[in-house]
């Protein structure tokens, strides 16, 4: 379910790091909690983000949620496809539904994030809380 080469935050964002560039999105769990996504707001290319800062907002039929950057860096690309097809976040949260790419300024931060196994356990715990 959760790709092994990603790192995950407690706020349900994922980051995939390749050659100093981190691709960021929200997890399958997050999209299923939000429901149908109708609008996505992302920052402009060139924006500097610190880990924990707001990337933007995701609006679903149920709620508006802030998305936080799991790592620090400068925005090098945003997923323009989401402007006309925000449902990609629901359909492919770990692939075509990515939000932004960052040039990492502090790659060490990623080690503080969860790996796939830890996140899977974290989500299982969350789901249990919900059904309880």
């Amino acid at each position, binding site marked *: 379910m959760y790709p092994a080469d990603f790192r995950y935050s407690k706020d349900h964002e994922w980051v995939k790091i390749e050659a100093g560039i981190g691709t960021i999105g929200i997890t399958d769990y997050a999209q299923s909690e939000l429901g149908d996504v109708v*609008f996505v*707001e992302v920052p402009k290319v060139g924006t500097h983000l610190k880990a924990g800062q707001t990337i933007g907002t995701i609006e679903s039929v149920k709620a*508006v949620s802030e998305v936080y950057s799991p790592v620090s860096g400068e925005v090098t690309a945003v997923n323009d496809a989401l402007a006309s097809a925000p449902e990609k976040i629901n359909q492919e949260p770990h692939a075509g539904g990515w939000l932004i790419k960052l040039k990492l300024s502090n790659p060490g931060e990623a080690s503080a994030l969860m790996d796939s196994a830890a996140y899977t356990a974290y989500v299982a715990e969350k789901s249990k809380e919900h059904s309880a």
Partner: protein
Amino acid sequence: MRYLPKSPSERREMLDAIGVATVDELFQTIPEKFRLRGPLNLPGPLSEPEIIDYFKARAAENSSGYTSFLGAGIYSHLRSVVTDALIQRGEFLTSYTPYQAEISQGTLEAIFEFQTLICQLTGQEVANASMYDGSTALTEAVLMAERLTSRHAILIARTVHPEYRQVLQTYARHLGITIREIGFSSTGQIDRAALAQESFADVAAVVVQSPNFFGVTEEISQLAEVAHAGGALLVDGITEAVSLGIVKPPAEADIVAMECQSFGVAPSYGGPHVGVIATRDKFVRQLPGRLAGQAFDAEGRRGFVLTLATREQHIRREKATSNICTNEALFALAATIHMTLLGKQGLRELAEQNLAKARFARAELEKIPGVRRAFSGPTFNEFVLEFPRSVKMINAALLRDKIIGPLAIGTAYPDQTKRGLVCVTETMPRAEIERLASCIKHILETPI
């Protein structure tokens, strides 16, 4: 919603729950010098008959029998008794915000119709319903442009209504927005050469008004090109909605901020009015204010709901697009009924009458020796004339003939003390226009 005061024991309970000893403690963040000590300076309570007498006395202060040539943002137009009769129906007059769609279809459909009509008139794709008035609509349009472009400077024409510019200044003062004013040329339009000299580096929007404060229409499509070339948006303000019956819709503008008082709302005491913002569909997320949308219920029947409420304060708190969280629903309804009664052809005829009467008045007044047009640009139902004497002096004399004369624009433009703004709408009889001309002629022939 019930408005019941709290009992002392309930207050105590609430204070204990949040761990505060007195209500005063809640206001500690407000500096002492700003806190109200002692009662407000208000008159005491009155009984119902006293209230009625009071308002009768105030109403008696209204002067009657005067002919007014004032416009400048507030226009005297014919209003149908149908409009007043319909908006006074309890279902409309006393209704609250239609959050609950299942019991508010009539109100929501009326709002939807208002938005649709405004879009048709302005050539824009989406309109809100509504803003307080034209001046706050213009300011909110500027704030929208700032959010959309992430730029913080505004180039605004000095031909925009001076009071609208003041409202914008008030908002901008603490928002980090820089406002640069652009002068006007001999046509009475924004000075295009001066605009071309400006650096557009941090410019969010070029703001104009058309017809502008001098009654002159601006070249919206050309100005849009200039703004867009600089990476800025074009905001067009409209104070005289009736002009849209004949003036080309400002479809090339990115945001249109409009005052709809001319559509069925009496000039009253200078308000209340009804503003609206219309814009492109792609900017809808940054549009402030209420928005009704068409939807379908579970059985596929057409219905209406408030939509995109996530822009608004009751959902998004400090991240809302605006801190304006109410509107002029009843007057938006009045405008809708008024527009519907007129129809497309009716609005065009109304606009043509305004244009024809204003042209007649201008020709009559220009016959007076020493009186000439101040600006050469095309006008609708208002125009600026230059007189050989101060306008205030002329007006003082006109008042004796029960004529409220041209607006002395020198108040807002100190170098223009001999210039006056004349407004002539469909309500003005020909005989009164001729009387104005003969009175001014007589005044100017009389030695000072």
